[in-house]
């Protein structure tokens, strides 16, 4: 992995600190009293769309003034302080690139803007880091979405920042690119960099072993080790809509199962509440077969991310 040799271990690490940060637009509160400290390693910022992740990231990156509270990078405020970009890199969600430049030109220009001592070497290193050497002399306008994203990551990494913020970095990437990006983020995190990426997709964060901050409706709903949060998520009650040839007989049989916490018999079939997703879905066909009931339909209800996250808030 090229990322490993290029991201040399650093002696200094940086901490991004949010103290009681809120942001509102008129009457709408986008971010509500969020406090967190981000240190070395990879952190996932997880939350449904509209939870305020982008607003929070923009405040972290100094592109939005907090209405209340303060964001500091090693004690320096990020708002109205371009100096912090010596240590901070941002990959924003908007797929905005100078399509008329080649990836190498683009990254080189960024290196020059940072006034790096050897911009050519830095640009080559950053382009190699995201494995874009093969296409580096083609105009970015000809790139796929994933390649553009990698070009922007290369530009954000060209000055080897201590802190890297990425807003929905896996959007539009194919599984291989996604895996590679994960590895890149991990190697950077292992090298002592502070990496934060946002996502609204559980499975993306799942592949990150680090800590997770969960945002729901502008608030920090949960934070900590991903496995703990994942357990909370998998153990939450699941609701299924079931239709069969004999709903009443199936309902009786299901009530005897430990994984089922409730059954409701309705006109259009059963509404089943189960505590364990895996156990229930494995058990249902066996139970139905034993009773000679044919299951016509099994639809998980209430699987929207919003409900998952709001469950977390209550937990």
């Amino acid at each position: 992995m090229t990322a490993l040799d290029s991201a040399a271990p650093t002696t200094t690490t940086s901490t991004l600190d949010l103290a009681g940060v809120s942001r509102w637009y008129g009457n709408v509160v986008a971010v509500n009293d969020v406090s967190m400290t981000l240190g070395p390693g990879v952190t996932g910022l997880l939350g449904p769309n509209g939870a305020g992740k982008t607003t929070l990231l923009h405040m972290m990156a100094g592109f939005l003034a907090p209405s209340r509270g303060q964001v500091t990078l090693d004690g320096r405020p990020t708002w109205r302080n371009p100096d912090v970009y010596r240590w901070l890199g941002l990959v924003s969600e908007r797929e905005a690139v100078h399509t008329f430049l080649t990836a190498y030109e683009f990254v080189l220009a960024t290196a020059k803007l940072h006034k790096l001592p050897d911009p050519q070497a830095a640009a080559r290193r950053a382009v190699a880091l995201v494995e874009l050497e093969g296409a580096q002399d083609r105009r970015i306008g000809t790139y796929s979405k994933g390649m553009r994203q990698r070009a922007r990551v290369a530009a954000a990494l060209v000055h080897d920042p201590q802190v890297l913020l990425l807003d929905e970095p896996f959007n539009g990437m194919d599984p291989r690119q996604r895996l590679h990006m994960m590895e890149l983020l991990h190697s950077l995190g292992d090298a002592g960099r502070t990496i934060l990426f946002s996502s609204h997709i559980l499975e993306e964060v799942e592949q990150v072993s680090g800590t997770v901050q969960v945002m729901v409706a502008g608030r920090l709903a949960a934070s900590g080790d991903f496995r703990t949060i994942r357990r909370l998520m998998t153990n939450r009650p699941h609701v299924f809509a079931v239709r069969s040839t004999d709903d009443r007989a199936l309902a009786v049989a299901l009530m005897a199962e430990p994984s089922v916490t409730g059954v409701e018999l309705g006109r259009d079939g059963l509404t089943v509440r189960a505590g364990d997703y895996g156990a229930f879905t494995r058990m249902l066909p066996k139970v139905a077969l034993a009773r000679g009931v044919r299951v016509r339909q099994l639809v998980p209800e209430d699987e929207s991310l919003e409900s998952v996250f709001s469950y977390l808030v209550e937990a």
Partner: protein
Amino acid sequence: MSTVSWITARGLFGRRRFLLLLPLPVLLVALAAISRGMGVSPSDWGPPVLIGLGLAVVLPVVALIVGTGVLGAEIDDGTVAHVLTTPLPRWQIVLPKLAVAAGVTAVTVAVPMFAAGLLADSVRLGLALAAASSVGALAYSALFVAVSLLTRRPVLLGLVYVLIWEGLLGNVITGTRVLSIQHYVIALADRIAPTNLLETTVSVPLAVVMTTLVSVGFTLLAIDRLRSFSMAGETS
């Protein structure tokens, strides 16, 4: 050439809107050449072509297209973030962009203005118009670069200023000319090459002072607004 001005220039010439710059100067020279060729007296065609078209339309509209193109277009498509996530002091971003805007506008306008002035009267008038237009290009550019940071609709606001304030009110209520870059340019050009073709009620000292104030003031405003640049999030 600084990296900021290099990217700015490439962005400007790489966009299709740049082609909008061509027709107006061509029209200006063509009208002047036709009038001259048909033997119309310069006192008849001079004021409408030189002022009415040249200084009242070509100069501000070209400045508007270029001035909002160097920064407003990057804000519009989000690419401005790449320049802003660097530790460059914000004046090192605004000044190169302003220089590109003023330079491109000056060249695009001064050349046809020189030709039109030459056809109307003399080399001296041509040079006066070219010089005054270049000064005006700087003032307009500073204004439109600053407007790009004050509103998400810089072209609309710029057009309102050029068409309503300078174009309409400036002709009806002479008092508004004190705040009209167009009249500073006329006053300056008339001072360099006195003819009876250019007339304004604005005095030369006022024009000099106001042009300086506009250029410096809006540049400082733009630098300050860029320090507080906010990215539009999902909520806006």
